[in-house]
């Protein structure tokens, strides 16, 4: 706290000391996309600044009537007198034939919302026709889906739990529906998606692989109500957005599965049902003093219920019913207040809550005419996490070449690793009982982070972002302090090429124990403890970007990651047992990941898309499991991904395709069998993840037809997943026909020719 107060005090003093005129604004192109690195200068002075990633600038200057000059390559220069107390939108028009696209400042930074100016992502081929932000991200280099068909994200050799997914600034702890098949977001509830795959500003922390920032629509270039109704094989969805340009916004997006509604109500209540829903509601407005207030709410739920009856009694009069119910849900709510203390000094104060809860209920009821009551037993297993966060993030414009970000972020996490409730009732010979074991209450941990970072423009061609994030972590009476250096340099070269170098350290005080596939609701979130140490990751990255001709841009990233204290389940059966200490069922180890990624994108013309290639390696070392390094489960050395989209504005049709080819997924197979010291047969594994399946290849297509009818825009979208029928394994399952380990059969399951369809009405 003392450090934070000192920084705040220094900034306020400096603010008073340099009492010059200050003006603020944003530079946009004709499509209202922000332009960054625009030179903003007061004529005949050294008062120069540059727009940031969001196109925003703050300029300190001398004369009130100065005509500020905005210059940007291949764009007409703009001269404007700016009011010193106003926030001005400046529009710049690219010259004919210019290549306005470039990738941005930060190493590893890719922002869909700002950079992809075609409408391609809506029409990307999707699994089952369900627009899915995760599957968009999976097409980026260095981002892998994990198991075939799943909507998971493995970024540069990291686990799924190393991704921090933020929805309007609030972390979400399970971003999957249907056990990992689909993401929890209505596609219209997301306007901008950005991902930091390693190097991230000091403002972000807590996870070690990536920061994925999802922002809902908050403004657009016209006012009014806009809506969309969508029907896919999985869901029916509705989106309504009422935006008053520059004043306020209200958006609501909701989806619900509909297949279960085809079943009779009696069946849904008594026999079986499966349904999912998600809801996102966002509201915000600009206050009279130009401050902003934003509210965000999100709720998701999955419910699966199956009941079977067994009339084991020969007379048929006694019926036993067995039921299983699996549920999980997310509840997110946040409020953010953006305040402008002065022209130099602005802040964001936010408060959020994110709760994730999962439960598995097994119950049994006996219907016996000879017993008045209905004897029943119930076993309920509950797990979850609650995260209550408060943040105060500030930006201070110290000088034209120094912008300082600093702030305080506190996250109190409450863990329910496992609570088991057993209820017995109604048995004539047994007393009713209720026993609760495992965690009776949620157990708290606390992360307090303080950070400061300076964006320093050394000269017109060099920018240096250097900062420090410190975290005080407390759990179970123990406390730890860690420091995270964050530094990256950006060098603007000739021909508008960009070279970036960065180093970050990340600490992660939370892990998800995988008891099945990623996305499975059985996976449990656990805190770092005195025994299970926090994950520590060092990241080094370099990137080079350039524009190619008028239409193309390309980038290459190389990175190296060293990971310590990775947590892995070593005993699946016990880790999921609420009665046992999960710490005894995990091991910790180290990991290493490195690679190079090439990215070529075309953002103009009828045919747009990108080609990416990634060479990447990721290994793990768990001395308790195996003496040597072994490949990470989702290590895929070679991966080529091509996304293409053809859009002709004069045609009703739009075509898209994904083509992915690369190294197969790893599995572990027993290669031999032998007798142990007690004479029992054991399986021999030469290493873990010892079998790489066949070359992964997938070709997906989408065809869209848009037809205006009766004042509404109707769209039909058709999809086909894996249309070449490649045998990309969902899983590889070694099964012995007997307990004596004889007759091994290796089964492979795969998906092919998966159709998808979506019907959309826009209004």
């Amino acid at each position, binding site marked *: 706290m003392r450090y934070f107060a000192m920084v705040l005090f220094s900034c306020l003093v400096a603010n008073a000391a340099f009492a010059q005129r200050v003006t603020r604004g944003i530079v946009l192109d004709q499509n209202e996309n922000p332009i960054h690195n625009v030179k903003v200068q007061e004529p005949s002075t050294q008062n120069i600044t540059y727009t940031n990633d969001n196109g925003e600038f703050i300029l300190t200057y001398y004369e009130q009537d100065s005509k500020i000059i905005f210059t940007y390559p291949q764009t007409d220069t703009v001269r404007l007198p700016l009011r010193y107390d106003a926030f001005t939108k400046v529009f710049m028009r690219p010259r004919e034939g210019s290549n306005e696209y470039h990738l941005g400042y930060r190493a590893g930074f890719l922002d869909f919302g700002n950079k992809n100016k075609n409408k391609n992502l809506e029409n990307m081929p999707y699994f089952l026709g369900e627009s899915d932000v995760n599957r968009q991200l999976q097409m980026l280099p260095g981002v892998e889906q994990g198991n075939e068909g799943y909507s998971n994200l493995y970024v540069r050799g990291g686990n799924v739990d190393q991704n921090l997914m933020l929805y309007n600034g609030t972390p979400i702890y399970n971003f999957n529906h249907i056990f990992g098949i689909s993401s929890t977001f209505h596609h219209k509830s997301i306007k901008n998606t950005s991902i930091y795959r390693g190097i991230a500003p000091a403002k972000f922390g807590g996870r070690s692989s990536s920061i994925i920032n999802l922002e809902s629509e908050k403004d657009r270039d016209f006012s009014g109500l806009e809506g969309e109704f969508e029907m896919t*094989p999985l869901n029916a969805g509705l989106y309504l957005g009422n935006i008053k340009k520059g004043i306020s916004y209200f958006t609501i997006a909701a989806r619900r599965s509909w*297949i279960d509604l*085809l079943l009779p109500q009696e069946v849904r209540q008594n026999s079986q049902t499966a349904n999912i829903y998600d809801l996102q509601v966002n509201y915000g407005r600009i206050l009279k003093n130009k401050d902003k207030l934003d509210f965000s709410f999100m709720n998701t739920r999955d419910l699966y219920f199956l009941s079977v009856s067994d009339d084991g009694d020969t007379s048929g009069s006694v019926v036993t019913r067995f039921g299983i119910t699996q549920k999980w849900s997310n509840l997110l709510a946040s409020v953010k207040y953006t305040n402008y203390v002065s022209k130099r000094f602005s802040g964001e104060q936010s408060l959020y809550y994110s709760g994730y809860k999962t439960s598995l209920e097994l119950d049994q009821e006996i219907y016996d005419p000879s017993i008045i009551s209905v004897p029943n037993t119930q076993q309920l297993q509950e797990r979850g996490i609650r995260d209550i966060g408060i943040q105060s993030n500030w930006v201070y414009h110290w000088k034209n070449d120094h912008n300082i970000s600093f702030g305080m972020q506190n996250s109190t996490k409450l863990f329910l690793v496992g609570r088991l409730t057993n209820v017995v009732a109604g048995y004539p010979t047994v007393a009713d009982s209720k026993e609760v074991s495992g965690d009776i209450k949620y157990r708290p941990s606390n992360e307090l982070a303080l950070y400061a970072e300076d964006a320093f423009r050394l000269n017109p061609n060099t920018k240096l972002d250097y900062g420090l994030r410190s975290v005080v972590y407390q759990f179970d009476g123990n406390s730890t302090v860690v420091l995270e250096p964050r530094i990256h340099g950006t060098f603007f070269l000739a021909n508008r090429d960009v070279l970036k170098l960065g180093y970050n350290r990340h600490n992660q005080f939370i892990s998800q124990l*995988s008891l099945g596939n990623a996305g499975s609701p059985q996976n449990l979130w656990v805190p770092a403890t005195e*025994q299970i140490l926090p994950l520590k990751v060092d990241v080094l990255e370099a990137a080079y970007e350039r524009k190619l001709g008028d239409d193309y841009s390309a980038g290459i990233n190389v990175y190296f990651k060293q990971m310590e204290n990775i947590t892995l*389940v070593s*005993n*699946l*059966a*016990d880790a999921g047992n609420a009665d*046992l*200490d999960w*710490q*005894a069922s995990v091991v910790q180890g180290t990991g290493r990941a490195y690679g190079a990624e090439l990215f070529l994108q075309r953002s103009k013309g009828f045919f747009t898309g990108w080609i990416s290639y990634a060479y990447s390696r990721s290994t793990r070392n768990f001395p*308790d*499991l*195996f*003496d040597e390094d072994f490949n990470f*489960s989702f290590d895929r050395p070679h991966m080529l991904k091509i996304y293409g989209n053809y859009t002709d504005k004069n045609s009703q049709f739009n075509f898209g395709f994904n083509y992915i080819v690369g190294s197969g997924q790893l*599995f*572990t*197979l*027993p*290669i*031999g*069998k*032998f*007798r*142990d*010291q*007690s004479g029992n*047969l*054991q*399986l*021999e*594994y030469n290493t*873990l*993840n*010892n*079998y790489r399946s066949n070359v992964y290849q997938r070709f997906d297509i989408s065809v869209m037809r848009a037809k205006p009818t009766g004042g509404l825009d109707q769209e039909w979208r058709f999809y086909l997943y894996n249309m070449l029928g490649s*045998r990309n394994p*969902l*899983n*590889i*399952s*070694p099964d012995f026909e007997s307990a*004596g*380990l*004889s*007759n*091994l059969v*290796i*089964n*492979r*399951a*795969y*998906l*092919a*020719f*998966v159709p998808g369809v979506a019907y959309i009405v826009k209004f």
Partner: protein
Amino acid sequence: MKKNILYILIASLFSSCFQDTIKPDILKDYTPKLVVNSLIAADESISIEITNSVASIDSAFPNLIKNAQVTIKSGAVEIKPTYSDITETYVSPQTFAAGDILEVRVSHPDYPNVASTLRIPSDVNPTGTLIENGGIDTGGLVGDLIQVNFNDPSNELNYYRLKVSYFNETVGVWVPFVFPKSDPSLAEYNSFALNDFSILFSDELFDGQNKTFSTVTPSGIVSRNTGDKYRVELTSISRDFFEYYRSIQRATDAKELTFQGSYNNAVVIHTNILNGLGIIATESGKEIVLK
């Protein structure tokens, strides 16, 4: 109509799921290995079992290897254990002492040669005491208190095996019983129990200390004994001994789960046999009989 839509949707989804069987090359190209298993204790004769491994897809099972060449060398001493049809192991009356370093080599024309270098751990000379009716057992009754005490060598990771038995005078046999892991030094992650009621543990939580383990026996189990009552075995074991049995236990737990092809339920059994499989475990220690 509703049902038709439902059926069409479900049918189209399931018609996209396929399954086949494969025979990966790593299974077809398997090279059988020698499997060497032995527990070499200080001051006890040698007995080594040698079998082979077979491919997992092979329907055959591992066999005893009876014509291998076995050599054990320690300093100037070199012995060649011979196969015994009685014990079905390679045996030698030669003994080795605590602290000895052994080089074991096994060769056979049909398999790659294997070797292992190991050390017999030092004895910690434990002492044991018996206090009759000195404690309360788990049933709330008065039982005998057994204590075993030893000095753990400092600044090195040591491993131990602890086993407690009572003497059944009626049938004249030692019967082991469960030693409760109630001592805080026996955490879940550094200790585990074997099927023979031994507890294996490391000294991570009491490195370099004078350590005493205690237990209260079930009330009255040796009340009619006239001579020997209890036997305490506390032996120093090699790290390989500990890691081997820990991996065996993990593999046993994992077998109860369905294979999914992931490594969560694939356990690499620890070995100290170069180019082969199995374990040559070593230990040294004393049996303490309490009367």
